[in-house]
Each structure stands twice: as structure tokens, then as C-alpha cells.
């Protein structure tokens, strides 16, 4: 099998984009990625659009054809990829398969979501569709409440205090302050986080990723095609794995581990020929602070119940042992659901190219992005590697 390279990246700012629709956002991000790649749009052979809720929130499905039309590329292969909040990572995985198979030599992986077209309660209804509609959404659980079940159990089992977990939000905001595409550019104190209103006990508003709109896109090519482009730094998509877990929390043996993370991690490491010690920079799906901590453990960076220590000891900082969410993470860069998995890779590529400005990690070579659908019903892990 040949290699897959990320040769172009593009994204919109994550924001409440009142003046732009879902079609505008994904078209804008795609054109930026194509321009960044330095290719003609006519070279694109396939488009994979990661999105969760356009059908429910915009009354719009068939995003593949819609985007191809708005890009002026009728005829190109294009379809939507849906895996709840992991839709973006799953779209990148689909692009990886397409290029690695040799069938296509140049494709677009796009993620897009627009949550602010609807009232908050409708966005809340849309997000719980990641769980079992007939038995869990039926009972009135919100998506935040599901994560709150995990949070309470995690604190009880491992004796960890909320103030040590809530630090993740402070961490994300610190880095988003220097990211022009981030939804929030204002630092937060731990006190701000712990005094913010409860959304679903014990989860507070400022421990939760915000509702926002955005789109990110990657141009992914075969090695042969990539080498014809004039680039200082090449980024290989060195591994891409997707794993599922039992959909509902109540059917799982353990609430405090996402087994899909563990499975996808092993597969992605094998594909890339690396282990956990080779990773220089990390993006984790911290839609809620406690999940960020759990992901550090499931990915192999900390023992169970001890992920918070990395945060407290400063190991997640740009000059720490494992720089994490160095462009603001889900809490502060933002979490436009189906686009998040693509934004994570956009951020990693920015770091590998040395373009991260004040947030630049010293000379990173290998990055890993973990993108989670539901409370781990799907996990997509993508590994990027710098090649000079």
C-alpha cells in the first residue's frame, strides 16, 4: 500500500456564524485547503463530508452532492460520513482508505457543523441522538448528563477532586488565546470554571465544550502526487483507525474507560509503526473536562485515575512531556461537532509545519488526534508524521 499525505489544510474560525450557512462554511474551508495545497480543484476525485446533525438542525441531508455543487465540481464522488461527534475523524478515515487503496490519488476530507441555527434546546435534542433514542434519549438524558454519570463515577472510584479535573478548561483557554480560529480568546481561571452554573450535576457550564459553527478541510493525496508539489514540510497521515464500543453506557462493563480508544490506539500505532513514547503532540476530545482526563489514561499517557496529574504537573503544556490541545482543544478552540475531528488534525499539521506562533511546540514530528463519538460509541484516531 502507498502512503497518504496531508498536503493542504483550511478552516473557518469557529464562531456563531449568523451570516453563513452550512454550505458557505464547508465551501470556504474546502477552498482554503485546496489553495493551501497548491492544486487545482479539478484534481479532487473524492469528497468525504463529516457531519452529525445537518438533517435535524438544517433540514439538509445529501451534503456530498451539495458541497460538490457549491465547489463547482459536479461529477466528483462525494458523500456524508456520520459517526456522531466522531464524524470528522471518520471522514478523515474514509479519505485515508480511499487514498491508501490506490483508487483515488487526491481527495478532500471535510468536517462541518452548524449548531447555532437552532435554539439551544433543539441542539440538545440533536446531540443526544448520539445515544439510543428509544431507551436513553427517551428517558430525558441530555448529552451533558451522560458525561456527568461518568464524571460522578470517576471521582467516586478514584477519589479525584473536581478542581483537579476542571483544570482542563483553564488549560484549553490559555492556548486558544493565541489561536485566531478559536471560538474563545479569553483566559479562564479555575475559580471562573468552578463558579459557573451547573448544566448537569456535577458538570458546570465552563467545563463543557461550547455550541458553535465551523468547518475544516484537508486535502489528502498519494505520495506520488504529494511529491510533485513544492513543499518545505510534508505531513504523512501515518495511521488512521476507527473503533466502536457498545453504544450505551449502561450496557458496558466499565464507565470510566472508553474501550474504543484503547482499540483504535493499538491499530493506529501499528499502522504508523510507533508506540506511545513516540508521540510529540496530542489532541484529545475533551468535550467535558473529565473526558479529557480519561482519554489521557486510555491513550496510555497515565495510569487509570491519574490522568489529572499530567494536567496539574504542567506536562500538557507546549514545553511539557506531552503537549496537549495546544490550540485550545474542544473547550476553547471550539467543538462544531462533526468538524472537530478535522480541526484537530488542522491544528496538528499547523504545529508540525512550525506555524503555531506563540503556541508552537518545539520541533514536533509525530502527532495524534483522538476524536470521540457519543461517550465513546465511536473513537477515531489519526496519526500524523512530519517528513522533510
Amino acid at each position, binding site marked *: 500500500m502507498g502512503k497518504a499525505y496531508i498536503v493542504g489544510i483550511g478552516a473557518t474560525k469557529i464562531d456563531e456564524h449568523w451570516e453563513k450557512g452550512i454550505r458557505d462554511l464547508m465551501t470556504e474551508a474546502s477552498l482554503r485547503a485546496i489553495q493551501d495545497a497548491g492544486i487545482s480543484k479539478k484534481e479532487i476525485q473524492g469528497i468525504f463530508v463529516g457531519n452529525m446533525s445537518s438533517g*435535524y438542525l438544517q433540514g439538509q441531508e445529501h451534503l456530498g452532492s451539495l458541497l460538490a455543487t457549491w465547489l463547482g465540481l459536479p461529477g466528483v464522488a462525494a458523500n456524508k460520513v456520520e459517526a456522531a461527534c466522531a464524524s470528522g475523524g471518520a471522514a478523515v478515515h474514509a479519505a485515508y482508505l480511499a487514498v491508501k487503496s490506490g483508487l483515488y490519488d487526491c481527495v478532500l476530507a471535510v468536517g462541518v457543523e452548524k449548531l447555532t441555527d*437552532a*435554539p*439551544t*434546546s*433543539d441542539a*440538545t*435534542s440533536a446531540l*443526544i*441522538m448520539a445515544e439510543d*433514542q*428509544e*431507551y*436513553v*434519549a*427517551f*428517558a*430525558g*438524558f*441530555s448529552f*451533558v*448528563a*451522560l458525561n*456527568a*454519570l*461518568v464524571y*460522578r*463515577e470517576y471521582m*467516586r472510584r478514584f477519589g479525584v477532586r473536581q478542581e483537579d479535573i476542571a483544570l482542563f478548561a483553564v488549560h484549553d483557554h490559555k492556548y486558544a488565546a493565541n489561536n485566531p480560529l478559536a471560538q474563545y480568546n479569553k483566559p479562564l481561571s479555575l475559580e471562573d470554571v468552578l463558579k459557573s*452554573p*451547573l*448544566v*448537569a*450535576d*456535577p*458538570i458546570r457550564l465552563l467545563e463543557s465544550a461550547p455550541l458553535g459553527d465551523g468547518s475544516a478541510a484537508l486535502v489528502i493525496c498519494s505520495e506520488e502526487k504529494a511529491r510533485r508539489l513544492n513543499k518545505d514540510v510534508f505531513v504523512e497521515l501515518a495511521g488512521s483507525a476507527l473503533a466502536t464500543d*457498545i453504544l*450505551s*453506557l*449502561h*450496557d458496558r*462493563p466499565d*464507565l470510566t474507560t472508553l474501550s474504543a480508544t484503547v482499540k483504535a490506539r493499538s491499530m493506529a500505532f501499528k499502522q504508523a509503526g510507533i508506540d506511545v513514547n513516540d508521540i510529540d503532540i496530542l489532541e484529545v476530545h475533551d468535550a467535558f473536562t473529565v473526558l479529557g482526563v480519561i482519554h489521557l489514561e486510555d491513550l496510555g499517557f497515565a495510569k487509570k485515575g491519574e490522568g489529572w496529574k499530567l494536567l496539574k504537573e504542567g506536562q500538557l503544556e507546549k514545553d511539557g512531556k506531552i503537549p496537549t490541545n495546544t490550540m485550545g482543544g474542544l473547550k476553547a478552540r471550539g467543538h462544531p461537532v462533526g468538524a472537530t475531528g478535522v480541526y484537530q488534525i488542522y491544528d496538528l499539521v499547523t504545529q508540525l509545519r512550525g506555524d503555531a506562533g506563540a503556541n508552537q511546540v518545539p520541533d514536533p514530528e509525530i502527532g495524534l488526534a483522538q476524536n470521540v463519538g457519543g461517550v465513546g460509541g465511536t473513537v477515531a484516531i489519526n496519526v500524523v508524521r512530519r517528513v522533510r
Partner: protein
Amino acid sequence: MAYVRSVPRAWRERQNKYRLIGGTCKDCGKTFYPYRGICPVCGSSNVEAKKLPETGTIETFSVVRTPPTEFTGQAPYVVALVRLDDGTLVPAQITDVEPEEVQVGMRVEAVFRRYREQGEKGIIEYGIKFRPVVNLESK
């Protein structure tokens, strides 16, 4: 707007939902809710339907303060995973109690209650909630 209205969708789940019917895997021993023909853990089809016990203990819970559209007006309310007395974990609301009184480890029993309405023109969906067990001896 909430999810799409449907009578048959609610109707076809009536056995599992109203009578608390789960499944037991004869191969790995897992019990689960609702009933389905394949064990979600080991994949075996050697599964039997089982009427689940109606008492249990709160394993973990949350208080929903910003609800989905179809629960607007009900907040704050308590959602939980209840560990039934045979070990099966089920998702449900906790009712007949103030949210601040709910605790992990609280003993609860099943009651039949209204859950959500499918908008103004749709049906009302019912199911099992759990309420604290009243200890008659202590009264």
C-alpha cells in the same frame, strides 16, 4: 421541534419498556436492558428474555438543568443508572424526590410514569421511572 412523531415506534417497544424486559446471555452471563436477540458483550445468540427485578440501587446520577426540547418545562429532573437487584444496569429517571436528596447507593423501586409528549399533536410516551423505596418500618 423535537424528534419526529411516531406511534408505531413507541408501540413496538411496549413490552420491554412497560414490563422491564431485559435479556440474559446463556454463554457469558451478561444481563442487559432492553431485550435483544444478540448479547452486546460477547455476540452470542444464546440469549433469553428475562423479566427484570423492580428494585435496585442508584449507581450514578445527574440532574438535567438544560433539557432537550421534548423535556422543556420538566427541568430540573434526575436521570440515573440504576443497578437492579440481579445486577442489570438500566437508564431511567428518578422521581418522587427532590434532586438534592438523591444519592449514590439510594434504594429505589420501579413505578410507571409519563416521560415525554410528541408535541401538541403527538402521543404521550410512558415508561418505568424509579422512586426511593419507602422504608415502612422506620415510620
